[in-house]
């Protein structure tokens, strides 16, 4: 029982990430409303951002800004790992950009079909196609 708790304490962040990933993926697959799908996509991307950030933490380390000036020896254990933070700054920007483009496409669909429900959009398209053909 005791080593179970240590296991949980050591790994629960990764499980949180995976569960978030599952929620995002499920939302994208199963949800009918386009905006809900977009939200699901965002959850999916945020889960991966959390995964990287949880890699960078060190127990008992402070934020990666060197507080005393030159001359002192710097021990890596005092500061968190800066690299994942840099990467995730980029990943956040990328997810915002994808969100922007997805919303633009959703607005365009709404302008054209007056609905955001995917099944209604598809049924309108099939009727358009049958009339067109």
């Amino acid at each position, binding site marked *: 029982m005791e080593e179970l708790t240590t296991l949980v304490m050591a790994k629960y962040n990764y499980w949180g990430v995976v569960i978030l990933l599952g929620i995002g993926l499920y939302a994208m697959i199963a949800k009918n409303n386009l905006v809900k799908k977009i939200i699901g996509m965002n959850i999916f*991307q945020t889960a*991966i951002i959390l995964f990287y950030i949880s890699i960078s933490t060190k127990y008992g380390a402070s934020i990666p800004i060197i507080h005393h000036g030159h001359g002192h020896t710097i021990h890596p254990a005092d500061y968190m790992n800066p690299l994942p933070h840099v990467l995730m700054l*980029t990943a956040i920007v990328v997810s915002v950009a994808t969100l922007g*483009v997805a919303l633009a496409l959703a607005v365009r669909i709404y302008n054209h079909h007056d609905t955001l429900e995917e099944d209604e959009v598809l049924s309108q398209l099939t009727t358009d196609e049958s009339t067109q053909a």
Partner: protein
Amino acid sequence: MSSQIPAFIIVVPLLAALVVNIAGWARRSLCFPTAVCALAAAWISTIIVMLRVSREGDIIYRMAGWDPPWGISWHIDHLNALILILIATVALINIVATRSTAAQEFPDRLGIFYCLYLLFVTGVMGIVITGDVFNLYVLLEIASLSGYALLGMGGSRASVSSLNYLFMGTIGASLYLFGTGYLYIATGSLNMVDIASILPTLENISLIKVSFVLCLVGLFMKMAFFPLHTWLPNAYSHAPGPSASLIAPLTTKVMLYVMIRVALTIYQPDFAFSQMALQDIVVWLAVIAIISGSILAWKQDRLKRMLAYIIVVEVGYMAGGFWLGNQTGVTGAVLHIVNDAMMTLCLFLTAGAIASRINADAFKHLQGLFRRMPFTMTAFMVAALSIIGVPPTCGFFSKWYLLSGGIEAGHYEFTAALIISSLINVLLFFRVVEISYYEPFDNHQENEQQGIQEASLDMLLPLLATAGLLIVLGFYAHSLVTWIIEPAVSSLFTGSL
């Protein structure tokens, strides 16, 4: 200054995209010339880089002056240089060919169209040239985002299929990012060569296997490999002409290059092919991709949708060829990347020319095209023969390598699939030829005085140049293989990076 040539390949198109946007708001006429000059400059620098690589061996370009594991570095070998030239050529031919159709299709946003065009080319070139795993993800996103926008501007269905493509593409890219996250946890570094040197020293293999599977599934999704290809036919068939003939030849091929780079450079061939029991599964998936893609292509009644399904089949060729595991198979896959990009460009340019002239895409509207648009249809014929695999054209040579690779590796089902799909291609293309060659039988005379409605000259010349290139590629396939692909593949296999 001459050692900085590799940087020009990425910097020039990027700066051009920015300048085009700024200038575009002031004077619309500036956009096209700047874009063409930028792409021409990039094309020339890719050729110079290719010559340097073949003369002095691989080029390592340290970005911001930092050594590889600390900063981002480019590692350009024969494979990179070849694909770079391919991308630059396709982009240059396409921008010149689709000038009039782009102006006709996007009258009020032409400036931004060329910005997105240049950013897409920068993203794709960046993917091929970079040696850093995370940087590849960022450039993947640039290429995809500009791709979604370019594809989304088509007809009524275009935005729906583009949104669908966005969802699938984002899941694919995020899975790739998740896979690199696993790699980062295991090795602590992001540079491909550095990871490759650390991986053998690690003991928990299962972590690396899961990361490989995640990366692979992500790339399969971006590559439209069979079970995950559902986004491609809609996205490419409803897209506007100029963007379809840019994106169709490039995205799937570049994703295949990324798969080759990830599988052979990072995970080393003995891990990728032997320890991972993936080889048979992927080859069988490729066989299913080839057969069902061909059958689905046969069921289509619109030209562009048929071409889209043929792309799915070609991806099956290349992925299956690569996963055969032996050097001939990989050589065939790389040669097929080059050939298929040119073939797809030629086909989509003809589809664009036909659509611009007759603005109809269904087969029944293509009647009597051989007489009305003789030159466009001859280019279509050359590309069709190349896809079928008729000798003088380049498609035959890559199919030959794939066939002999399949037999050497003992995957006879892959060879059989190749043959069957070539035969189905014969049926596909000669159905189009029949429709466009035989006028409607009753009004033969009435069609006579309609005369020739050939596509405009500035679209026709690049189209015929591409068709000619297909035949030239055929004749020089051997020298292309011996000078460029053979050293690339052998260096990949011996892992002597």
